[in-house]
């Protein structure tokens, strides 16, 4: 086998992998807001921290993007009150109340 045939095999793998890539790919997070996100919906939220409780190893905070909601982040953070943040989160019901389960938080 020469390098041309080897390249051809690589090309076939690219085509198969590419097809699989486009079939399996779907947007996981899109920019959204608290009021437009349904329960169990994921999204990227931008807003401000109104109040924060640090309970090691997790963090609880009130998040405001025009509407307010309780947010739960299962890790320790250095976040403070009035910080502007971007959240990758899922809206869910906890103890009968709407809450954001935060996967990642980025301080702006």
């Amino acid at each position, binding site marked *: 086998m020469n390098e041309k045939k080897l390249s051809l095999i690589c090309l076939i793998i690219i085509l198969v992998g590419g097809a699989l890539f486009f079939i399996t790919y*779907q947007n996981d997070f899109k920019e959204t807001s608290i009021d437009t996100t349904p329960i169990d919906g994921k999204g990227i939220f931008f807003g401000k921290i109104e109040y924060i409780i640090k309970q090691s190893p997790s963090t609880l905070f009130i998040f405001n993007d025009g509407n307010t909601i309780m947010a739960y982040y299962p890790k320790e953070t250095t976040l403070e009150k009035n910080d502007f943040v971007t959240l990758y989160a899922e809206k869910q019901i906890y103890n009968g109340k709407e809450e954001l389960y935060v996967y990642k938080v980025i301080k702006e």
Partner: protein
Amino acid sequence: MIIFLFLGILTGTITGLIPGIHSNNVSLILLASPLFGFEALIFTLSMCITQSFVDFIPAIFIGAPSTDTFEGVLPGHKLFLQGRGFEAICLTVFGGIIALIFGVIFLSPFSIFISESWTSMRFFIPPVLLFILGIIIFNEQNVKKKIIVIFVILASGSQGLMFTDQIFPLIVGYFGLPTIVYSLNKLPLFKKQAEEINIELKTFFEGIIGILGGIIVSILPGIGSNLAAGTIRLFRDKIKTENYLVLLGSINTSAFFFSFSVLFILEKTRNGAMVVLREQLFFTNEEYLLGIATMLLAGGCGGIITIYLAKKATYFFSQNRTKIFSIISIIVMVGSVLFFNGVYGLVVLFFSSTLGFFVILQKVNRSSCLASLIIPTMFFYTFILY
């Protein structure tokens, strides 16, 4: 999303071409970046898989081994000296391609096996690692060398226990820096490199065996692709240089392929890139399938890029250029250690390089230095499990 794929392939190509820079280090930067979820997944996997192919270009043409390919230096250089450097690279690409194709086929039985048997299997990790150390010792030709290897195992094991979280300078010191510095004044005479290659299809079998090596690397902590290749070589009678390069290429690629599955099934990590991914993923089926697709796509691209760059390299490299690139490699390695591990890393690099030089001068199996990873892992599993 495609942009992250291209970025990953580009970064993997760069990290593969520059000895001393590893995709694991670049992945760590991801932790501080806003990349997350699918973006992080596509970028990291495409970078790692591409690097697993491109890695062999500096290992064979510049003579600067990376942490994954140092076992490939000798067989690769053998062909390079015969003017078959391009063929040596293509053989590793062939191995990587076999790993991708058959890796997908073996993925399902592997997933079932690992999820069913991990609980009992982990009890065998310390004895298996001890067995591998035993193989390294008993494989030496005479008593003097056996004693030297035992000393190296104890010394590198002690360094591994002392310098925790300093894996990068340890590996660069054992396998990277001493090799290049040692070879600076012993560079081979340049021989005109052949542009035509002929890969025998029967080397295909070595690629399949390499997948087994990749599985071993993805499961057993402390075992790198190089050591897996060395261990497989011990169980097979005379293995041809060409076959060994296919084996190594296959192990290098399948190790990442199966490490990703181990991450999803067991949430266990075997390298820096997977540690980063564990923090950035949600472990959904969609992510798993997208990860496999990304690795196939990037692997195919990595293969073509490697063939193209290797062809260019055959024109480009002459003795003088090899020397310049060796010096650049040394600067990059030391700079990377300083950047990622600070001054303390340089201190660790000094000690590990000293041992690395000793091993080269004594002409004993350099895999013995991997005791710096194996012994701490044995200790960890022994104290946790027993």
